[in-house]
């Protein structure tokens, strides 16, 4: 049947998944190895989600930051075309510079958001095990003024207890969107869960009703986190301040 064979795919928007990866010296060894391993393994899953999704295709962009910042590719790539080059850890934590760099690419003109049939808001995953060593505030301020960033799904993964969770909370806009991992296995699992969940939800038409995509992603990740040993959402880490407890009895 000629006419029906001429059918073309519906136009799809693009949803870009950004990985912002801390590659400072403290990430060296197991941590960076786990990140490399987890991202390589999640790419085919993202490809599956993209290829069967009539709403949007998923592209991936990755920015590593240490002494400076570096995009792994100079444009977002389809997951199947994204050949992951292992990132190497050394140097400082230029999170401020990473924020500025991301802000400059979250734009249509000259940036990464040039898709002809438009985009969905991006999903941004920030991974860090420390605190910024540069002027973080001005970079973040610039990013927070960006409209793409404002509507983005934002999740941060804090690797270990040295990660500056206040900074990560500021980045994502809420403590619920910051997941802490305490071991290598949890790190790998969380990267998978966060990347898959934010891609699934971010690349689909939103659900009708009250709940936002960000809220939905956070809820799903929190649910999944309960089953992963060594991973927790920031909320569950809040403990009762013992000094106040003692004061009460004093």
């Amino acid at each position, binding site marked *: *049947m*000629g*006419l*029906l*064979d*001429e*059918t*073309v*795919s*519906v*136009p799809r*928007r693009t949803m870009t998944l950004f990985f912002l990866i801390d590659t400072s010296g403290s990430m060296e060894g197991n941590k960076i190895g786990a990140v490399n391993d987890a991202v390589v393994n999640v790419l085919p899953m993202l490809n599956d989600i993209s*290829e*069967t*999704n*009539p*709403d949007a295709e998923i592209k991936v962009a990755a920015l590593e930051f240490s002494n400076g910042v570096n995009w792994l590719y100079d444009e977002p790539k389809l997951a199947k075309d994204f050949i992951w080059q292992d990132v190497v850890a050394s140097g400082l934590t230029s999170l401020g510079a990473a924020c500025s760099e991301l802000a400059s690419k979250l734009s*249509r003109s000259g940036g990464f*958001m040039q898709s*002809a*049939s*438009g*985009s*969905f*808001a991006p999903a941004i995953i920030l991974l860090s095990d420390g605190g910024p060593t540069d002027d973080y505030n001005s970079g973040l301020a610039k990013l927070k003024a960006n*409209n*793409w960033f404002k*509507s983005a799904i934002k999740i941060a993964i804090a690797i270990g207890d040295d990660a500056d969770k206040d900074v990560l909370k500021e980045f994502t806009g809420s403590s619920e969107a910051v997941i802490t991992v305490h071991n290598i296995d949890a790190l790998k699992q969380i990267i998978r869960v966060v990347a898959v969940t934010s891609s*699934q*939800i971010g690349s*689909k*038409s*939103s*659900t*009708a*009703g*009250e709940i*936002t*995509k960000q809220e939905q992603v956070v809820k*799903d990740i929190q*649910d*999944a986190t309960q*089953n992963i040993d060594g991973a927790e959402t920031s909320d569950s880490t809040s403990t009762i301040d013992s000094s106040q407890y003692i004061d009460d009895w004093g």
Partner: protein
Amino acid sequence: MELKKGARVNLTFGNQATVIKELGRGGQGIVYLVDLDGQRMALKWYITPPDEKFYKNLERNIRQGAPSDAFIWPEYLTQKENGSFGYIMKLRPSDYFEFGNYLLARKNFKSFNAMLAAAMKICNGFMMLHRFGYSYQDLNDGNFFIRPTDGDVLICDNDNVMPQGEKSGIMGKARYMAPEIVAGGIPDKYSDRFSLSVILFMLFFANHPFEGAKVVACPCMTETFEKRFYGSEAIFIYSPSDKSNLPVRGVHQNVIKRWPLFPSTLKKTFIDQFSEEKLWHPNTRMIEQEWERIISKVRDELVVCPHCHEETFVDIEDNKFKCINCGDDIDVTKQLKLNNRSLILTAGTKLYINHDNTPDAEVDFFPSDKNLLVIRNLTQSCWHIDTPSGKVKVVNPNEFLPILNGLKISFGSSIKEAAGTKGEVIA
């Protein structure tokens, strides 16, 4: 909690199902292939268990049974164990493909006939669902599985089906929901009817009814914009009164190509169903039976071209009778009149007298004379024919009658749910 291979889950009626492997996962849960008493079935297992109300609703739906054979309906419920629960349903046969595959042009209908059959089956499924007092709620392109060869449809994800007026908590995708639901309302049969129109439009035209110039111009489809484009500011791409959202050449190619090919009956219905009045007055939306009647009318206008032998639509309302493939004129003088319907008789055309997807008759050539057209009885029962000269003839199953002016057919009991139908041949 996820289940491992070999895990056994206890069903509420006492049996156990054994997990064989994972078949897929979605937002809510994982689907496993399971063995249940030697039979292969599917188990949908919730990663995090929905609330008690959801469980009770599933239990009730299982007790009530499926509204029609179009539904892959929950059949058995598991006990609450391993921190969650699930339900057992039939496996989806491998020759059915998710509707999304058709939108992505990875699968195509084999024929317009199959496409119309799919539309009919979806309408019928929704009609039966509403007749049972349910509403579907979570409607989107992932819920329908269609067989490309004949358009048979299976409707899945029926765990969110709820009695009218109740809210499952699982909401459909904004792109498929009625404006009042996008704005936060509770889905009901009226909003289901809107979603049905969206699904049917996408089935026929392979583009979205509200995605035209206005929507393409939006660089970032945030949730706020979705609420506008599919809700408060939704404009049908072929709205006669507002041309601001027309389909865009090079982007919405399917609808631009197909819209002119379909009969006016169908186009007028969509224009009406996506008009401002229907958008904002849910109870004025067309009921499923009416959709069935429209699709049946479109099917009456689907004929095989005598010149190129491809399927083509004629447009009785608009008096357009040129083949959509070869452009030659179609002879429409030979017709079967059924009440107010006119079925065009060209060789190879299948005739559907009732609204199911089984053809009741087919136009064919007399075996030894290619100049004589006949109507073959594809039903299981005989027809009685009154000739103009007063003779009565019997046409048994698989036999035929010639296409001669004035022959009156009594279909007797041969047509399911339309016993006593009568027709007359005009030639």
